[in-house]
């Protein structure tokens, strides 16, 4: 079985890798590019732990083949902080203790960032629906929602 050569842009850098046609984008990010922020929770698009954006669109990287990433622009949790300076969402997650085990956190950060880029002033209900595809079994979600709502408010004040 021959491997496919894929060229794509991840967090602003052009990268290429060889993959088996059956490998998902998540497999390729983790195993070829050593970007292990995106997690495999379910592998079937139910839990959102593998969330990334592809051409600005929030997707589950487990529901996309590596081969489909050819020519796309991908953003992962590794691209959210600016060097050592955390993104306001990351800072708020720490302040609110909006995580425990941390498995869901990268996916939720990517999903929440995507929400705030699309809608800087979401209601709590909109935020909860947007994040309904990101499962967290530790926090009960409340701290996550508070962290996202407060970040949204601060970003609006700062802009």
């Amino acid at each position, binding site marked *: 079985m021959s491997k496919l050569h894929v060229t794509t842009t991840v967090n602003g850098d052009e990268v290429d890798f060889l993959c088996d046609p059956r490998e998902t984008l998540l497999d390729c990010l983790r195993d070829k590019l050593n970007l292990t922020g995106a997690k495999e929770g379910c592998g079937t698009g139910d839990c959102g732990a593998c969330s990334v954006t592809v051409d600005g669109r929030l997707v589950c990287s*487990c529901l996309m*083949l590596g081969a*489909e990433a050819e020519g796309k622009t991908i953003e992962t949790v590794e691209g959210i902080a600016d060097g050592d300076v955390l993104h306001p969402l990351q800072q708020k997650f720490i302040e609110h203790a909006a995580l425990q085990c941390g498995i869901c956190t990268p996916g939720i950060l990517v999903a929440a960032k995507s929400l705030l880029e699309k809608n800087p002033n979401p209601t709590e209900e909109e935020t909860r629906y947007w994040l309904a595809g990101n499962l967290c079994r530790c926090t009960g979600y409340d701290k996550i929602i508070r962290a996202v709502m407060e970040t949204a408010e601060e970003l609006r004040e700062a802009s």
Partner: protein
Amino acid sequence: MDYHSPASFAEASALAANATGVTRFLAGGTDVLVQLRSELVTPDTLIDIKKIDGVSDITRNADGSWTLGVAATGAEMSEHPELGSDWPGVVEAMDLIGSTQVQGRATLTGNLCNGSPAADSVPAMVAAGVTVSVTGPDGTRDVAVEEIPTGPGKTSLSKGEVISAVKIPARGDNAGDAYLRFIPRTEMDIAVVGVGVSLRLDGDTVTEARVSLGAVAPTVLLVEDCAKAIIGSTLDDAALDALAAAASAACNPIDDKRGTIAFRTEVAGVLAKRAAKIAYARAKGEKA
């Protein structure tokens, strides 16, 4: 598994026609990749149709009808400034499928070709009178959506045939559509019953109607008796009761942990009434 990304539907059709073993077309992949992962279906040939020109386009034609590319996603449909005002039922049905992440990939055509009797967008498309273009070795033909599914996981498409466009008719005046489903929770579940209704009014009287049921039979149903029950009426209580009775009578559901036969049959009638009322209000120009 061989992965192909052809540049045209003719090429995609030829690839499928000449392939041996299991062939799957890849649009959004939200079912195909789950089946691959769970080893339910491991294709020998996977044909990604997303590199074909225009497959993500949502176009309003000069006659008011719509042509949707087969890779246009639920998110793109919901974000479209005009599609949802013409066909709110079709858009809301598609939008009920899965999470934000799934909406970023999932397509009407994928939902149809997956062949689930509980597919949310399919009853809405059937009610709306949507047709699909099917490209095969002998050219392209138009097929009504209700003729595509033939049973759970099965379609009428033959070897080498691929859906190449989705065509939604012109909405026209004094008309509205709606889709409702029952699930045991508030979000992200599979329909226990789904009902799509599209109707047109002359004054207060229903002159045209199409009613479709999902998850209550081996395929999505177009129920003519439901349409007959409300055509000529002002959707008064007697007509609504007749509609509910016709919907329940059309049901041939399975009994499982998500809903019993009796429950699905009852709920089909209840949802048909509610969906018809919403479609009627929309046809009157009320925002609902």
